[in-house]
């Protein structure tokens, strides 16, 4: 049988999702045996052009070069996977969509910087067709392996879209909202992490992106009702739970 050909690409991001592939230490040699990985610049100098069956694309579109690269990848690939939260939802860089990118640029680079075109981070789906979304900041190793295994069988995996609360309750954790009156984004956020943070007694930051019907208003009311400062709630939810394009909804439902 022909080997499965996967392309691994990074747009603007932290490379954490690509690193997660390398972090599968126990499985890495087996992966290399079963899968041909093209364009994995982070790990290999072997630049392979040509078509790929599946492109795993990490990062968000933050500059015109990213967009050109994304379009080229789409051309070359039969299936395109938004690999990680940045690719899926825009990620951390996409928060505060209301602030003009030039303001951000000038804050960081000051008046001396050579002006380059600043655009706000957007998820892949804003520009090209995305066939499958594997969220996570970074993606969960288990889900990554499941995706690769499933791709070897010619299918995308069946990945849960239930909120983090489902796993948190199943693990019989204490509810951070109820017990500590802290902001927790668990109910807004896609599970699949095994409620990693609440299980550490750390409130969910929403890093896996929002569930399909994230309901900001209720979350906001609930937390406000528990005496948590409105701004604190907004800020926490802004991190990940309100990805590009949804931030406005958050603001609206908040007021």
């Amino acid at each position, binding site marked *: 049988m022909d080997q499965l050909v996967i392309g691994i690409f990074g747009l603007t991001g932290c490379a954490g999702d690509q690193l997660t592939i390398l972090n599968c230490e126990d499985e890495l040699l087996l992966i290399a045996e079963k899968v041909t990985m093209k364009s*994995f610049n982070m790990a290999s100098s072997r630049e392979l052009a040509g078509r790929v069956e599946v492109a795993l694309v990490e990062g968000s579109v933050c500059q015109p070069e990213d967009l050109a690269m994304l379009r080229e990848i789409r051309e070359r690939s039969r299936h395109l996977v938004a690999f990680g939260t940045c690719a899926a939802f825009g990620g951390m860089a996409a928060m505060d969509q209301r602030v003009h990118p030039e303001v951000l640029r000038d804050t960081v680079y000051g008046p001396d910087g050579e002006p380059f075109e600043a655009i706000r981070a957007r998820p892949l789906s804003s520009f090209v067709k995305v066939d499958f979304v594997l969220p996570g900041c970074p993606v969960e190793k288990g889900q990554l392996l499941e995706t690769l295994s499933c791709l070897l069988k010619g299918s995308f995996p069946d990945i849960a879209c239930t909120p983090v609360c489902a796993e948190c309750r199943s693990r019989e954790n204490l509810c951070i909202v109820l017990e500590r009156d802290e902001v927790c984004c668990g109910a807004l956020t896609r599970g699949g992490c095994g409620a990693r943070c609440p299980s550490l007694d750390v409130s969910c930051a929403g890093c896996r992106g929002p569930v399909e019907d994230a309901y900001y208003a209720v979350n906001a009311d609930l937390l406000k009702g528990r005496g948590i400062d409105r701004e604190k709630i907004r800020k926490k939810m802004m991190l990940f739970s309100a990805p590009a394009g949804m931030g406005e909804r958050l603001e609206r439902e908040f007021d």
Partner: protein
Amino acid sequence: MLRKRIEIKHLTRVEGHGGITIELVDGTVKTVHMDILEGTRFYEALLKGKGFLEAAAIVSRVCGICSASHAVTAQLAVEDAFGIRVDSRTVRLRELLLLGEIMESHALHLFFLLLPDYMGYPSALDMARDHPIKAKMGLFLKQLGNRIQEAVGGRAIHPPNVMVGRFGKVPGRQVLSDLLACVEDGLALTPALVDLFASLEVPVLLEEATQYLALSSRDGYRFVSREIAATDGKVFQASEFSRVCNERVVAHSHAKQSLYSDRPFAVGAQSRVVVNGGELTGAAAEALERFVSAQGGMGRGNPISNSMAQAVELVHALQAAKEHLVDILTNGAGDAPPETVIEPVKGTGIGLTEAPRGILYHRYDFDDNGIITEADIITPTAQNLANIERDMRLVAERFGEISADGVVLSPAMGCLANRDLSFVLQVIARAYDPCISCSVH
């Protein structure tokens, strides 16, 4: 006038997107640019207006490889601003976490990004087919680093467990003793590890005097300190760092660059070994001695030695991790973390750590409510960029004209023999193990 341009569009086996452009006019190097093409996420701007509790979660996303350093450094800055003192177990656990990151990062660099150059393979996966034992050693050490980060930080990348003043959940006794057993296994590998890297013929590309900077500590080889030492003998305090490294915007790159007294300088494993090597003990000290005698010293300006310094640090990290684990297991693991009441105070906080690639600096200004009003992040790769360009210029001046025209380097250059200039330039860049996501943040 004969103009020549050497362009490397995409550096491979480094983290992120970067390239190199060199222009020669009549055989003289005119410009050397390390082009950082990575998109900018404007982290310093995003931090403005966010609360102190979110700082670590935000900045750890700057980089997947150095996320633990960013998280710890952010919390150090917050604690510095609010005058929070943390208990000794938290201090140890943070160091342990950073050691895990060092192991993971160095093992990744040495075995996956660097060794293929020496062994003549395009990637570690190609190399692994012919050299499974070496590959497995690398994987084991890398995995050990990840295990430590998972156990302490709660996740190998972007560790959520690192909180202001404490850890969310302190790892339990069982987890720590399992880790200790793994660290012992890792220590058993160190002779083979040192042999492997001592057996490599390290080409002496350059011997120009180089300025090294590292956090200095007088109580052992540490990765957290508030004092910076330079190899010119000067010592600085945390608050002086931004002045000392003088970070500024450059035209050709999205990453800023730094100069120390108007000259490029280096940070990272090599700098740390040069500055603090005397504090190394046991097998790490022996390894250093072996590399020094083989290569005539770490501080002689050869950037390729950085990799050997990383190998020394791998040995040290294993030793130090063992020490921390034994201490925490003896003095209490897994108990509820201390409750810290955090009262925001208006003012400035600075965090400093040695990330795998060198000094990492975070500075935040807070208002009365603990909201960030101003943020500054200076990453090691950004500090190194000017020095990388300097090294490339020197090499290009020395070898450029001849090798670019097809004349190859001498056999004395080890793995670089028979290679053209563009390959050599890539090897220099990789020797610094640049982290481009960090440098443009």
